[in-house]
């Protein structure tokens, strides 16, 4: 399910009268269980590529396949279902729901998936403990530090064991210790649960964890190499 194929993916944005190229004929294959980092300067197309793979943004042309699903052709509803069932998102700015507690935020995806309350609660508490937030289940996002919020966001992304986790600059707002913990967690999940990770980052420390490093510039892939993590 989680193998990803992108073919001739193009995306442009209009900024005033100017046309900006987000993705320029991208061809990319990511196999199940890979740990991939997308690196490159701002505006290189990392986030645009993540959004396209995750079905958050529609490419102007080209194809995106996730397993045997043609992502770029899905309607809004089935696209939402696909994200719900198969993808976990971690955003740079945490993006928690402010009116829900840490545990409720983690349970949210499972709740929409239709899991029973007891199972949800048990899984949410376990994952929060795993990310080091035991005892903070009932706190709302405003009562948590940036690092703690990001860990809640990670817990939410991985709690239902998605096939693919897309993380956009997940360590950008974290100190080096928290960033190390987070990447260690990602690595463990990748190794033990074969969850595919695609992470966009500028952070050299994050790149060290990747098994495959893809370099992007001006919407193009300019380098793609395996590396020892």
């Amino acid at each position, binding site marked *: 399910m989680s193998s990803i194929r992108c073919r001739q993916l193009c995306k442009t944005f209009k900024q005033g009268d100017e046309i900006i190229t987000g993705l320029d004929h991208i061809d990319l294959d990511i196999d199940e269980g890979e740990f991939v980092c997308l690196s490159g300067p701002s505006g290189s197309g990392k986030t645009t590529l993540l959004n396209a793979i995750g079905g958050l943004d529609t490419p102007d042309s080209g194809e995106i396949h996730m397993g045997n699903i043609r992502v770029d052709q899905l309607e809004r509803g089935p696209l939402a279902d696909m994200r719900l069932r198969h993808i976990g998102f971690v955003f740079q700015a945490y993006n928690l729901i402010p009116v829900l507690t840490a545990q409720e935020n983690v349970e949210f995806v499972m709740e929409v*998936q239709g899991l029973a309350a007891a199972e949800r609660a048990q899984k949410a508490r376990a994952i929060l403990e795993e990310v080091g937030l035991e005892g903070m289940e009932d706190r709302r996002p405003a009562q948590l530090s940036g690092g703690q919020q990001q860990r809640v966001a990670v817990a939410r992304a991985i709690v239902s064991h998605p096939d693919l986790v897309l993380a956009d600059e997940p360590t950008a707002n974290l100190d080096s210790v928290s960033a190390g913990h987070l990447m260690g967690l990602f690595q463990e999940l990748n190794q033990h649960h074969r969850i595919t990770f695609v992470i966009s980052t500028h952070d050299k420390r994050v790149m060290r964890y990747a098994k495959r490093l893809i370099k992007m510039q001006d919407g193009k892939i300019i380098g793609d190499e395996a590396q020892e993590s």
Partner: protein
Amino acid sequence: MARFSLHFKTILTLSWRNLWRNRRRTAIMLGAISVGVWAMIFMTALMRGMVDDMLNQGIRNLPGHIQIQHPEFLDDPNVVNSIDEAHGDLLAALKDDGGRVWANRIRVPAVIASERESRGVNLVGIEPLSETHITGLPGQIAAGRFLESNDDKGLVIGAKLAERLETRLGKRVVVMSQDPDNNIAERGFRVVGIYRAELAAQEEFNVYAARETLQKLLKIEGRVSQIVLVDDDYRDVEALYQRIAQAAPEGVEVKPWYEIDTYLAVMFNMMDGFVLVWVVIIFLALSFGLVNTLVMAVFERIREIGLIQALGMRPSLIVYQILLESLLLLLIGLFIGNLLALITIKPLEDGLDVSIVAEGMAMMGAGSVIYPSLTLYDVVLANVVVVLLGILTSILPAWRASQLDPVRALNTH
């Protein structure tokens, strides 16, 4: 909808908590809805009370909810156009169950003369015991007494007529009419009671004597001008009317009040439409605030809406969530508004004195005291209109929220 029920708890939690994120705005909106709902119900109760009063006054003057009479009596209220007193099947139907009151009546044109003045009047022969429920006349006696039996020899006249005739309680007056053979029928009566009616015209025009006394005077023993019936509720006389009409003998006409006085009937029928228009107008004023609140709530949460879309919430669930938020706001507002209406209407059930505008009220055929009438129909109508239109006006902001581009929404600051 299946999705809605599956995820009801999720969206209920989100809706409820989102509602209280901006407490001040929610409180203001709740205040507006509550006051609006209160105004709908309170003003409707006042209007209903006023119209009820006008209709009751009008029906009392007819009098009765149903009349049985000679087919030509309404066009020509002559003593010739009389009918037999109730008997046989008709009597059985009249005495049948229910809280109704009925009475034989005589109603003829007459001339009343004091030693100084004379006037053309409507001479009414009544059965005193039934009259409380038919015209409420015994309660209107301002001086003297009411008639005590069907063969009482006294006469009850209105205060206005007494003034016109320059007569007073205890004085004798002469009443003159015609018998069926066109002979003059006259006799002297002592004024035993003076009544005050809510409508001056009634005071000046209606003169009451006992039924048997008038039957003897007019030489129509065993015959009456009308048989009048008053049921529990003037709004619901159709079934009774049908039963009485079936039991009535040939040559006798049975008519419900709404056929006798079409003006009253139109007023009655218009009232429901008027209430609906009133409720909708108030709601329209409210809807601007409601839509504005929802638009602002959506605007402030664009990023979150993008997030829940990204996490896999279907657009339809986002629509349901925002509609549920609106529904919660409406339901709380309705609860407070209904409570306010109840609290303010209950103490006024004994009557709201509007004697300061009594003349105007009298011109409309209403009394100087309004008794607010809170009906279940009006309360349900106000609540249903608010909920239905409230949800309708919320659909657009909810739909727009569901159509947000998640990437753009997530990048909104």
